[in-house]
């Protein structure tokens, strides 16, 4: 009996089905041989891909598509965090303020979100000096002293005092790490 040559698209379908139902390896091999021998031009692609099982191919494709969408999304939603991972240089700054009449002195500024309860200054015993240590990262910070929770005072020894929008002033501290920029300065 003369063997009938199947049309090209039928051969493709048959081969795809064999792969999908995970037919025995011997059947797949036989089909592969037949396709190669009869030279079905449209089957070349499917032969080439047939090395990877269909389900695995679908998963790989789905994962790639998902990554293509989620990676930019993740960057978008975490854009405020990215780029700030490197540890900042921290400085420990000791503030000293002289006032003999005050009962409490607090230091408030950009570095503690202007929170008067955050940095209480301690009076050095038997002196009129108040002191506090603040940890700050590189930056420019406005600050001032709050005396007895009501009176605003500038740092008398600050080199820079900046006007605010409310008719008062704040002292300014500038902490810049120049170690990397020495050559350009």
């Amino acid at each position: 009996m003369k063997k009938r040559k199947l049309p090209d698209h039928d051969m493709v379908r048959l081969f795809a089905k064999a792969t999908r139902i995970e037919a025995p390896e011997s059947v797949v091999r036989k089909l592969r041989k037949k396709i190669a021998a009869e030279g079905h031009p449209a089957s070349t692609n499917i032969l080439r891909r047939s090395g990877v099982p269909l389900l695995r191919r679908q998963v790989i494709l789905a994962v790639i598509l998902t990554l293509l969408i989620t990676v930019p999304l993740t960057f978008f939603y975490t854009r405020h965090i990215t780029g700030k991972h490197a540890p900042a240089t921290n400085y420990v700054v000791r503030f000293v303020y002289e006032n003999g009449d005050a009962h409490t002195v607090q230091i408030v500024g950009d570095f503690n979100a202007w929170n008067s309860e955050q940095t209480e200054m301690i009076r050095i015993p038997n002196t009129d000096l108040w002191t506090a240590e603040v940890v700050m990262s590189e930056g420019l910070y406005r600050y001032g002293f709050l005396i007895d929770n009501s009176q605003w005072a500038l740092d008398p020894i600050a080199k820079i005092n900046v006007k605010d929008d409310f008719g008062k002033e704040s002292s300014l501290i500038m902490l810049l790490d120049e170690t990397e920029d020495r050559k350009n300065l």
Partner: protein
Amino acid sequence: MKYHTFYIFICILICITTPLFAGSTEKTDAIISYTEELYTESIDSDALRGPVKGALNEGISQESITRFISANMQAGVEIEELIFYLENMSSAEAEGLPSYLVMNTILEGIVKGATGEEIRTSLLTSRSQIRFCNEISVRHKGRARRGTDETFLLTTALYNTLHMGFTENTLEQLSSSVLEHQRSSIFFMNSLEVLMELHSLGLENEQSGPLINSAINMDYRIGYIRSFPKIFSTQMKRGISQDDIFASLKEDIELSRAPSFESGNGSSYSGNNRSSEGPGSDRASPSQGSAPSSGAKKGNGNGGG
């Protein structure tokens, strides 16, 4: 086959994106419940939810928002006012401007006892100032430093300089000179610091701006420029007029030489200071010129302070 791929893709997409969106809602809920706890009287949580979520979505950190709300609570700020502030911060962030400058302006106003109306007015003017400062900073292409963005630092420095009465024109000129002479952002920030110090010494902005500009144009190093405040303070103590000091420094700059005045400790500034670190540049790094009541020590650094 195509349907299978599509279904798997949708499933994975949902699995990955759900926590992302849920995270944002969770943060909003956390802030809202925190606010409800802080406010003694009942508040309209739904009205606050939108602005808080908006601020989070714009990239303002949960910590900053919580701190901001907390400060407002302590000061007894009305909830409507708080919503207005939050929306203002979000819109600044959406515009690509640093919202912390807006936030700090509000908090500074609250601590100094400014009224809601005064704060609102200041936000209007400060927004255009921040926009201008940001535009200039972006031109300088500051690189990311250890944990800090140089552009943000420069924006803050420019913003403070503007608050000292320096005109936008002066800052534009300085910026152009710095760019023209291929100086770094940190050089620009140091120049601004000197400008602010000169202002705090009581010098005229109209004179100090052009003085620094000409020093930059003559390619002087920052060590030279940093010596200006010291020269002014010592010479003024000796009774020499500001105008005379300005004239002398200008002459020195034009003749490309170091300041001819003697410094307070008796050592004289001499020699060309353009190509090497000059006597005025012996200040320790980090810049601690404006931390007078303090010793600024560098820490080991792990995260922001």
